[in-house]
């Protein structure tokens, strides 16, 4: 058990209590609002000094606790799960920070700028107004006030208590509930509207750091082990954001309250429930969107962008850009979840899905209407034998994302293959280097990308890295900057031969097969998924854990669900380094 908080502690309310009228306090005292637990036992978090990606010493049992900011998708999904998918978010989210290849790791290093908080505030107002409006209140608010023109602390408390638990991913303390009811009361009196009170109180919770950040509340020191474990509610959140990319549902929270997530049996049972839920698809999509850098499709990155020149690539419309990401996600979900397939097959599978717009870029005839005349949207499609396309590397979401606006790029594609798919790091180019010739497409002496890169690589300063990037990148040269297929560049037949770490092959099919048989590809997936779950690079004993995950992934025939299950049920996911210095005065796992 941790330390007892002071009476003035908890998640502060001194000023807010002034907001609440005396009647609120009386209501609580008289039991007209269900009393939340007092500010109970403290739990400890000590996340210093290692940053989210910092390597720690070899004797360390676990990495630091994480304070992670909710991602835009997690924010949207949480709001949709709690209030319904018809609630409009409004506002905009700022670009996220990518660290160690993942936004999920960068989230452990993100704060919230003034402009961003302004946006969150606007979104909170928009969301809260909808939740209490005439069309939603009957469904979302579990009681009716005695009079709609003034405060009703009992009804407000019932709503805010339930919603607060879902938003904060733990029960509200008694003080916190008092504050929220106090806000609702004061605002209702001022506005002469009970629902305006709920709106203001809900909006306040939606901008609170308790909601916008994911906290790592822990149980306290475990005698001499050098680490602590997440408490039940933090476990529930860790699980839920990992597997569903959203906040815990009521079942998870109930299990957390009952301590069921602390036992291997209870944890396994809950993980199995979550993996069997259709919501796991959202989790898998979120992970691969992050790993494959699809955020760069929305906000252009320096070396990955869907910004295409419409005069050169007129078929590459915003709709195609959106469909391209969806195609890859559908391909992955179909293979890895629906068919419990071998991860290595994502690089070679002929099974995919197309829309008419996307099919136009692929040069595949796809009717725009179904046989019964309905508009055609997504259709399953199987690349025929011998087709140059197969697997996700040949899809627009990879070859076009890693290209320039008006021309393909063997360098960007080769670099992305190394860094995104194989988890290797290619150094940045040195200064004072001329890249002359690489893209001088008008020079008759160097008509193709290969000839230009061959000339470029004669520079010894460049050769070291370009010998890593260019050979696999050149194997993708049959694809234009928009992802469409071609056989010639400037009238010259493209030589799409390539190599990867000494293995030579021809064209995209050869590259697909080579990557599929490269042990680095599944090992990369395991590393990324573990870091995605932890929110940071593995540290201390976790390094050995990741090695074991890789071994087990092979033994499980590269099945993603098995890997998800193993990570989700591993003790390592719920351990944090114990330093004992800092005390977190949050609600503990004590039951209400």
């Amino acid at each position: 058990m941790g330390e007892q908080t002071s009476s003035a502690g908890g998640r502060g309310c001194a000023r807010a209590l002034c907001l609440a009228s005396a009647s609120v306090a009386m209501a609580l005292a008289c039991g007209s609002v269900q009393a939340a637990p007092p500010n109970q036992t403290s739990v400890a978090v000590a996340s210093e000094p290692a940053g989210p990606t910092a390597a720690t010493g070899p004797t360390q049992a676990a990495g630091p606790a994480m304070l992670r900011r909710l991602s835009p998708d997690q924010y949207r999904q949480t709001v949709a799960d709690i209030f319904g998918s018809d609630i409009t978010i409004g506002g905009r989210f700022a670009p996220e920070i990518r660290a160690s290849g993942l936004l999920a790791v960068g989230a452990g290093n993100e704060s919230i700028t003034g402009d961003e908080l302004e946006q969150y505030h606007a979104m909170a107002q928009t969301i809260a107004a909808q939740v209490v409006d005439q069309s939603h209140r009957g469904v979302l608010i579990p009681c009716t006030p005695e009079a709609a023109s003034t405060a009703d602390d009992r009804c407000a408390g019932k709503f805010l208590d339930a919603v607060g638990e879902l938003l904060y991913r733990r029960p509200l303390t008694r003080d916190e509930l008092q504050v929220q009811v106090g806000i609702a009361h004061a605002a209702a009196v001022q506005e002469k509207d009970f629902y305006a009170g709920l709106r203001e109180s809900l909006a306040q919770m939606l901008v609170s750091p308790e909601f916008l950040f994911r906290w790592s509340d822990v149980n306290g020191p475990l005698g001499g082990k050098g680490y602590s474990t997440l408490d039940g509610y933090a476990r529930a959140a860790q699980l839920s954001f990992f597997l569903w990319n959203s906040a815990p549902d009521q079942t998870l929270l109930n299990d957390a309250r009952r301590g069921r997530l602390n036992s291997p049996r209870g944890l396994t049972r809950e993980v199995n429930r979550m993996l069997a839920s259709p919501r796991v698809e959202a989790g898998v999509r979120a992970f691969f969107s992050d790993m494959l850098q699809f955020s760069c499709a929305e906000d252009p990155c320096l070396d990955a962008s869907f910004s295409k020149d419409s005069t050169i690539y007129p078929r590459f419309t915003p709709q195609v850009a959106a469909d391209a990401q969806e195609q890859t996600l559908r391909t992955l979900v179909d293979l890895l979840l629906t068919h419990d397939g071998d991860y290595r097959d994502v690089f070679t599978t002929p099974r995919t899905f197309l829309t008419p717009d996307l099919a136009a870029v692929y040069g595949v005839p796809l009717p725009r209407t179904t046989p019964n005349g309905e508009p055609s949207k997504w259709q399953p499609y199987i690349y025929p034998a011998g087709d140059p396309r197969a697997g996700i590397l040949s899809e627009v979401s990879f070859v076009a994302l890693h290209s320039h606006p008006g021309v393909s790029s063997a360098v960007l594609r080769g670099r992305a293959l190394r860094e995104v798919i194989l988890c290797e790091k290619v150094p940045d180019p040195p200064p004072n280097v001329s890249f002359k010739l690489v893209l001088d497409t008008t020079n008759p002496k160097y008509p193709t990308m290969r000839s230009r890169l061959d000339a470029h690589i004669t520079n010894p300063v460049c050769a070291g890295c370009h010998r890593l990037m260019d050979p696999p990148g050149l194997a993708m040269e049959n694809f234009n900057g928009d992802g469409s297929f071609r056989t010639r560049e400037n009238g010259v037949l493209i030589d799409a031969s390539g190599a990867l770490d000494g293995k030579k092959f021809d064209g995209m099919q050869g590259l697909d097969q080579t990557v599929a048989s490269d042990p680095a590809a599944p090992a990369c997936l395991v590393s990324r998924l573990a870091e995605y779950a932890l929110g940071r690079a593995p540290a201390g004993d976790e390094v050995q854990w990741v090695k074991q995950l890789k071994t087990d992934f092979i033994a499980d025939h590269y099945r993603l669900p098995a890997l998800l299950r193993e990570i989700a049920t591993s003790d390592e996911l719920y351990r944090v380094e114990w330093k004992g210095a800092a005390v977190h005065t949050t609600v503990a796992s004590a039951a209400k």
Partner: protein
Amino acid sequence: MSTKVNRRRVLRGMLGGAAISVGLPLLDCFLNDNGTALADGAPLPVCFGTWFAAMGYNPGFWEPTLVGSHYEMKPQLKVLDPFKDKINVFSGMQTFLDGRPLATHETGAQICTTGSIPVGQDIDVPSIDQLVADTIGSRTRFRSIEVSYEGVPSSWSRRSSSSVNASEVSPLALYQKIFGPSFVDPNSATFTPDPSVMLERSVLSTVSDQRASLVNSLGTADRARLDEYFTSLRQLEHELDVQLQKPMPMVACSKPTAPGDGPHGQAIDLVMTNGKLFTGLIAHALACGQTRVFNAVGTMGASSVHKVGSEATFHIDTHEEPVDAQLGYQPEVTWYMARFLDCFSDLLTQLNSVREGPRTLLDRTVIYCSTDHGYARLHTLTNIPLLTAGGANGKLKTGYHLTAPGDTVARVGLTVMQAIGLPLSSWGTMSNHTTKPFSELLA
């Protein structure tokens, strides 16, 4: 609610027993009748902006030969000739890596804007605009605004590595943010505080109350991140406070016309079009006292700015385009550079066209113009072209070319900040640390 609020009076929003108190800034209460200066004759407050366009200029084609106040405009800066007396040109300075790895296009820009190479928690410093905003940005509705002409939401404005200010990419969105329903005309005869804003402000104060219990529970790095959140919260509260005050009159303020909901992107024509819209909005925002700090990015390093129909981009051209033997520079690259100088020139034109009594908005502003590399073709970090524009209400002398070969670029930033009145005696870290402003420019 009173429709007329005595500006010297402290506003009080009573809410369920709690009071919000909004004290009016003292200076704002002593304006002269026409709002062109403070009542004691002091000029309107200083504004600060940064302008960033990657890739620098062509060595030999921008540095004046003459040093001092009688310098001549070289070909690449000819477009700025109308402002020769209102700008300063700095040549010869460089950025120092101190053995740290170079992130091409990033490191040079970071040093120009922070005086340091920010590396995680080891060196984690705010950018110059945020330092300035700490001093002059606290009385306006928006502490600072950031815009990107090329539609990429990046910026060099940062409080730390975990708190980077994103750029607005849509002129319409910026218009709505500043001049939307929450905008209050500072020259309006009447003022009615909005009760809903008062309510929002009071509710937000309950979030602030959570700070102590939350921050104390964290280690240093996470505490710093959470502190940044609460700094942002105070900023938001402040924005609402400002909305509850009668704004001080601004003689040159006028509400601009809303821009259309046009596309944004990296085609150069689009960049120029949106740049012009952003420039107009910045001028109006400053003139109306909505902010005193702005950051405008023409193009970040290694961006995909391009001509429609061209396979190459500005950045690719810097690497690939041959130097024209007769001209002595890369023609296509130079064309792009000229477009961004056009954007900068337009910014100066718009600010200079806003007259506030005998002076212009540009006269009470300082714009710090920096870039990422000295010579784009080779991506060098020496002879970085730097400019300042505007005179900070006469505190920064203008019309000079100064050269300091081998000195850190941080000298210019330090000079600007001292001119604005920041109590700084030095700026930068390691080899980019300097205690030497260009004191000859400080009035």
